[in-house]
Structure formats: structure tokens, C-alpha cells
């Protein structure tokens, strides 16, 4: 378990962490999710001991680690750009942590072979990092971090430098690996899809603070504010509120006075889904998402007058944080 209490970290005038507290449960896979500059990487590096906080405390498995150097924290760290030891082979890279601990050679050999098999690199042990693909390098970096049997595994945008398809593959693989190895893991990412797919707990960060913590579904369905709602998925703006486009119900006739009149401006078929863009009497535009069956039943066409009503969670749109902010990819 990792406990972080009231962490503050400044870089010059920039406040990277502003009184951040967080609890990471034993054996969980927690994602720190936020846009760039939100402080998520800094938080991870403070947990690792690679940055020293200006104030606050870090506790790893009950012991205060705030002043403990990274060497002695019992962590494994995976960097976005792999940080592979370029002059060492894959085998030597993975063995590094054990070699500096002066473990017996036979033990090192056995452990490294076991890990290389775990990450599927057993055939490439003699290669140098330059001879590997990005995905292979990152799996090597993960094996290297796991070799020292860390109490905590910290991953800093581990798939950020990879192609989209490799990223999707590795993320499923990481989830399976975590189910197998069960080490407490913290993953930093700016990709909400990645966070929702891999993590069992999310901590959404913005401007150096943690805005909301919870299970992915909980955050998606009950976002604490407009920022979380906008960051975790698409939003439509209706009458000063934010609502998920798929939570907008369209009807040909009003049911009661709560329904809002709107005119269809455009219909876009996206396979199973249909996106309907509507114009409200105020002139505001709103986008709704329907299934194909729903759209067919309504016979939606451009110029139609429809009645709409939000059927899911709504959040007041704050003026300070743009709700339609899409995470950078």
C-alpha cells in the first residue's frame, strides 16, 4: 500500500503538486490520469524518490519513505522512453538489479530466464536494445523492473511512445500480467481509454491536484465536476449543463414540459452508432448519440424537429475548465 499525504512540489514558480493526498491499495492497479502538466508524472516520481517533495510525506507499506533514496524504496520504475541500458544485452538489462545486489550467478540466470519468458522475450536475450521494437523494449524494461521483486511498480506513460495497435496490445498484456503478478502498481497516463481499460482505480489530476478518485465506472457515471466528466468521455452541453451524448433521449413528440425542442442539423452514421447534431431555439448546438435502431425508429433526417431530454448524470459546466477539453493523444 502507498499513502501520499499533503505533497507539494514546486519547480520555480510552477506548482506541480498542490497539497496532494492519495491512497493506493495493496495489490491494486491505480492510474493517475490527467492532461500534460497536471502533475501526474511528478507525483509518480516523488513516490519513486526521483524527485524530493517540498512538503508532505510518502509512506510505502507502512514505512515512511519521504527521505529514503530510490535505491532503498523497493520500487520498480518503467520510463516512457524505456531508459534501456544501450550497451547491455536484453539479458544483462534484466539482470542489472540482481547483479548490483550481488546475487549468486546461478540465481540471477534462473530468475532472468523466468522473467524473459514471462514477458515473451526469451528468444531475444542476446540482442541489444537498438535491435528491438518499441514494444519489445518496453517489455524488457518491465522485466528489468520486476526482477528485483519490487513492493511497488511505477509506470510513467509506459505506452506513450508506441504505435496505437502495439499500445492496445500491451495494455491488455499488462492487465493480464498484473492479475498474475499482483504487485501494487501505479500507472501514469493521459489516455483515458487506457486508464479505464487497465486500472481498477483512477485518480484524475488537474492543475497539480487530485480532482477525483474512484473506480473507472464510478467516475464515468458520477463525475465530481465538469473537468472529470469532460476528461473521461465525450460530452454534450445543454442549458449550462454537461451530459453524455448517449444519455440524450430524442423523441418525435414531447412527453412533458421538461423536454426541449431542437432541429436536426446533421445526421452522421458511424456504423453501429448514429450521431445527430441538433440546434436549440437559443441557437446553441448539441450533439446526441443514438443506436442505429433508435435512429431508424425515429426516422431522423435533416430539418426534423425533435424533443430531447437528458437521461443520465449531468454536471454544471464550469466556466473555468473547458468541458469539451479532449485529452491529448
Amino acid at each position: 500500500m502507498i499513502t501520499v499525504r499533503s505533497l507539494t512540489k514546486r519547480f520555480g514558480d510552477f506548482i506541480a503538486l498542490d497539497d496532494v493526498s492519495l491512497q493506493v491499495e495493496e495489490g491494486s492497479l491505480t492510474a493517475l490520469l490527467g492532461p500534460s502538466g497536471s502533475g501526474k508524472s511528478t507525483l509518480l516520481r516523488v513516490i519513486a524518490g526521483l524527485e524530493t517533495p517540498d512538503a508532505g510525506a510518502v509512506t510505502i507499506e507502512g514505512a515512511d519513505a519521504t527521505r529514503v533514496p530510490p535505491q532503498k524504496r523497493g520500487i520498480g520504475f518503467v520510463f516512457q522512453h524505456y531508459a534501456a541500458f544501450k550497451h547491455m544485452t536484453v539479458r544483462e538489462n534484466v539482470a542489472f538489479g540482481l547483479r548490483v545486489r550481488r546475487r549468486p550467478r546461478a540465481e540471477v540466470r534462473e530468475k532472468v530466464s523466468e522473467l524473459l519468458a514471462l514477458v515473451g522475450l526469451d528468444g531475444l536475450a542476446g540482442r541489444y536494445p537498438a535491435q528491438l521494437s518499441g514494444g519489445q523494449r518496453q517489455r524488457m524494461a518491465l522485466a528489468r523492473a520486476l526482477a528485483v521483486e519490487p513492493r511497488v511498480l511505477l509506470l510513467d506513460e509506459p505506452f506513450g511512445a508506441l504505435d496505437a495497435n502495439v499500445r492496445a496490445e500491451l495494455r491488455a498484456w499488462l492487465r493480464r500480467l498484473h492479475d498474475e503478478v499482483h504487485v501494487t502498481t501505479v500507472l501514469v497516463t493521459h489516455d483515458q481509454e487506457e486508464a479505464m481499460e487497465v486500472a481498477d482505480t483512477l485518480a484524475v489530476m488537474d492543475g497539480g491536484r487530485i480532482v477525483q478518485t474512484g473506480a473507472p465506472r464510478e467516475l464515468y457515471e458520477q463525475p465530481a465536476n465538469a473537468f472529470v466528466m469532460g476528461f473521461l468521455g465525450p460530452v454534450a452541453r445543454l442549458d449550462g449543463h454537461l451530459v453524455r451524448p448517449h444519455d440524450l433521449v430524442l423523441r418525435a413528440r414531447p412527453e412533458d414540459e421538461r423536454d426541449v425542442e431542437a432541429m436536426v442539423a446533421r445526421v452522421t452514421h458511424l456504423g453501429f452508432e448514429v450521431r445527430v447534431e441538433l440546434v436549440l431555439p437559443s441557437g446553441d448546438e448539441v450533439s446526441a448519440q443514438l443506436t442505429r435502431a433508435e435512429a431508424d425508429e425515429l426516422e431522423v433526417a435533416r430539418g426534423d424537429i425533435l424533443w430531447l431530454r437528458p437521461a443520465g448524470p449531468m454536471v454544471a459546466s464550469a466556466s473555468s475548465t473547458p468541458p469539451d477539453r479532449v485529452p491529448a493523444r
Partner: protein
Amino acid sequence: MRASRLTLRFVALGYLAVLLLVPVGLVFWRTFEHGLAPVWASVTTPAAIHAFWLTVEVAAIAVPLNAIFGVVAALALVRGRFAGKWLLDALIDLPFAISPVVVGLALLLVYGRSGWLSELPVQVIFAVPGIVLATVFVSLPFVAREVAPVLREVGDEQEQAAATLGASRWQAFWRVTLPSIRWGLAYGVVLSTARALGEFGAVSVVSGKIAGQTETLTLLVEKRFENFDLAGAYAASTLLALIALATLLAMTALRRRAE
């Protein structure tokens, strides 16, 4: 396009030939004008043999010192965060800026008979320690200037990774940092060696030029030239040039491997 590139190549090579190849080639030519025997005789005189070994000895002390200092200075420049870093940066280049003769005179002022440190138990001026000091001074910047950009390019992520894997700073240096700067270091060492072997000005001031004692190869060349022993001067020059050539070849080989 093609023609202009050929012209450019011709001009560049022609320039190098006139400036470098012809003079050096002529020295070789004049050396072996009367066959090998006189050359052999003049490079195997006791004074010549002593000068050769002294030159090698001085380089063998000065270059490792510069290598250690250069790596430490490069680490401080690239990784360090301290006040006065700009001063270190500027000071490292000082030997490039100051004429070797001035370096020699400065050493005289410090260690000479009426200098600040004239009371030292070992004799510095007109002795081997003075020659070593002068050589260290003039060949100081090479290693630091070759290693610093490599360090900057490599970055510190690998060192951070080593730290998270449990490596102490010392282990991280030997196992990660040093191997990743090895080609820059080797290149700096070769340049430093070449400079150390060829140093004349500063050494000339502090050595006292005592034949068989404090006379290096460059000083021997000068003495023979002044004494109208041209054949002897050419022979010693060729010996010096051959050592320098060997280091240059080593450097080219290293650079090939680095790439």
C-alpha cells in the same frame, strides 16, 4: 551541381595538401634522403632515447590525470547544479586561450626560485614534475570537451533507472554512465595524448632543456635544428610525427567503432 561538388572537394583537398601534407611529407622525405642508417643512428643516441622515454612518461602521467579530471568536470558541467558553474565552464577553456609560453612563465612564477611555492620538497622547475604540470595544463580541456556533449545527449534517464534498480551512485557510474560515454572519453584521451606528445612552448620554459634529463622530443628537435644538425632534427621530427600518427590512427579507428 555535380561539378560544383567536385570543385569543392578539389579545393578542400588541395588546401589540406598545401597546408599539411606537403610540409609533413617533406620532413619525411628529407629524413630518409640518405637512407635508413643515419636516421637510425640519430634516433638511437642516448639523448634521443632519453627524450623519447621522457616524452612517453610525461604523457603517461598527464593523460590519465586529464582523463579523470575531464570526466569529473564534464559530469559537474552537465549534471551538476551549483553556483559558479559558468566559471568552471570558462576555466576549462583557459588552456585553449592562453599561449603555452605564458603557461610556462606562469608556472615559473608559482614554482620558480622566487615563486610562491619555491620551498616545496621536490624540485618542480627544471625537472620532470614541471614538465608534467605544463603538459597537464595545456592538454586539460580535451577530455571534458569531448565527454560533456556525449553526457548531455545520453541524458540521465539510464542513471535514474539504475538508481530505481538499487544501484548506488558508484555502481551506476561504473556500470551505466562510463560505458555510455566510453567513445567520447576515448576520443578525448587520444586528442589529449596527441597534444601532450607535441607540447613545446610551456615545456620549453619550465624544463631547462637539460640533455639526458629534462629534454623531451620536441625540445630535442629544436636543439638539433639550432645547432645546424638538420638531419638529426628531421629524424627526431619523424619519430615524433610517427607517434602522433599512431594516435591519430587509433582515434580514427575508435570513431569508426563508435559509429
